[in-house]
């Protein structure tokens, strides 16, 4: 087993960095986040590592290369907003916030322990950088629509990004909010669906089929973009693309548990906790 990873604080990648260079740095940051995330979950003995690993490339891209967010001034009213609607992937968010410099790294070791501010689902009143309380599915998108409406009312350039799971899109509140966002022309809103094809107990196909998801979002009035959710350069270009008059729906194709050999696409890893040998293997595969 290689050395237990410490998590450096990475600064935002400067705007104007050549895309290939930015993507290479994002890959490095995402690998560091995954290496720390597995220890957070193994230490707590609970968490949702499969969904964390499917979302971490998206989180890293947003925080380090997309969001107009200064870790030294996280309360700036003109900051871009990010809402993690799939709140069960809180360890991925907390680890990303620590890598970004918004959360002290030592706090990660308290994840889900009694009295910790790092609850299993994020609480904005306890953790700087958390913009909304989520965990019950289908809450993030309506709140994000409120953020986007407020920016429009303020004639502000600030943008809002919300990350949902794909199984989460079975909640009707998402579709209410997409209708509202499209009706109000919220081009400053980007909905990212982490489409890993798996929910808690089975595939989305076996549970309640979502296909054709792109057609549905398009029919609801959103601009749909399909992208690999693990391709940092493609994510970067998609998230930073100029607005088109419609809210954007990014259908991010991901693999639950990515890129770990024994977790990838395996539904058992929704909230299974890796044991010591598996932690060692995960760290080895991420080295």
């Amino acid at each position, binding site marked *: 087993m290689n050395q237990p990873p410490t998590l450096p604080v990475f600064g935002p990648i400067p705007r104007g960095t050549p895309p290939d260079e930015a993507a290479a740095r994002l890959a490095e940051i995402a690998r560091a986040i995954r290496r720390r995330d597995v220890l957070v979950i193994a230490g707590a003995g609970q968490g949702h590592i499969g969904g964390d690993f499917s979302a971490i490339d998206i989180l890293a891209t947003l925080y380090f290369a997309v969001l107009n967010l200064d870790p030294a001034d996280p309360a700036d009213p003109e900051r871009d907003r990010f809402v993690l609607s799939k709140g069960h992937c809180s360890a991925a968010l907390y680890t990303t916030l620590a890598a970004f410099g918004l959360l002290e790294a030592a706090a990660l070791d308290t994840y889900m322990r009694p009295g910790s501010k790092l609850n299993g689902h994020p609480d904005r009143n306890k953790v700087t950088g958390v913009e909304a309380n989520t965990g019950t599915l289908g809450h993030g998108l309506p709140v*994000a629509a*409120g953020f986007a409406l407020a920016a429009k009312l303020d004639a502000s350039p600030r943008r809002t990004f919300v990350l949902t799971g794909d199984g989460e899109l079975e909640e009707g509140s998402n579709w209410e909010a997409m209708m509202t966002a499209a009706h109000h022309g919220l081009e400053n809103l980007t909905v990212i669906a982490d489409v890993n094809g798996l929910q808690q107990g089975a595939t989305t196909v076996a549970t309640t089929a979502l296909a054709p998801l792109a057609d549905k979002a398009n029919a609801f009035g959103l601009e749909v973009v399909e992208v690999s959710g693990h391709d940092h350069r493609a994510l970067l270009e998609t998230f930073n693309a100029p607005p088109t008059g419609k809210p954007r729906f990014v259908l991010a194709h991901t693999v639950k548990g990515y890129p770990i050999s024994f977790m990838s696409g395996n539904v058992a890893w929704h909230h299974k906790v890796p044991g010591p040998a598996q932690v060692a293997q995960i760290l080895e595969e991420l080295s």
Partner: protein
Amino acid sequence: MNAELFDCRVAFAETLIELAETDERVVVVVNDSVGSSNLAEFQRRFPERTINVGIAEQTMVGVGAGLALSGRIPFVSAAASFLTGRATEQIKVDAAYANTNVKLCGQSPGMGYGALGATHHSIEDISWLRALPGLTIIVPADPAETSAAVRWMAAHEGPVYLRVSRLPVPNIFDQTYRFSPGRGRVVRDGPAATVVANGVCLTRALEAANLLAEQGVEIRVVSMPSVQPLDEDLVLACAAATGRLVTVEEGQVSGGLGAAVASLLAVKRPTPMRILGVPGVFAPTGSEPWLLDHFGMDPAGIAAAVRELL
């Protein structure tokens, strides 16, 4: 008491317009409920600040939270039954748990929709929402209390639920009335018993006091618009002063104003009580006044409940 009757919804809408004129942060969020919230004039004056999300209550409350977290003061207004029933979890998570500055305004609460029936009645809202920490719950009795509550809500930082009554009521308070959370008010005094009421039931409690006075029984009547937090000091003082207490509310008795008062007294000062409200049933078909009478919240019924304790 002036016999002329007034609509609290008018006071609500006029006060919101007055606030919006001087405070750019004030917006309304509705679920196609401009009409049922009496906000047509607000919309005419402030079209940009009238956000209609469509018939989508979960989104309505979530959007309200997002607006609040962006520095706006959103008054989220819809029929009380749909606002508190369809979006209960958004009220719990996005307003109360997240502690956002959302002002939830339940229109035509209680049995305000009369013969439209149980789907439209909001007799559960207070019971549901009292379980939420940090949520202030206000049930005003007349236009002045409604206006004062709206002004306080705009100035207060934090989530609030307000009932905006539909049944016309006489003016009980004048325009100098100021709302304070956790504060009730003695509206009429007497030693025999205390009647604690709010919403449209306060008028009926005062009429009951008149009936009892004609029979030589003088009672205290307390207006209790602040259900959460409750005015515990005033309730305990009334229990000490009069030794008997009746509560009257337009809602289910399980978990409402009466339950809040009873929980307090049971622990701190056990006192003979009667709790008037809807006794654990869905209401039959009828107008709002007829239903209030039907459930014993007419002046004679309230007076009879007091007499049972004497």
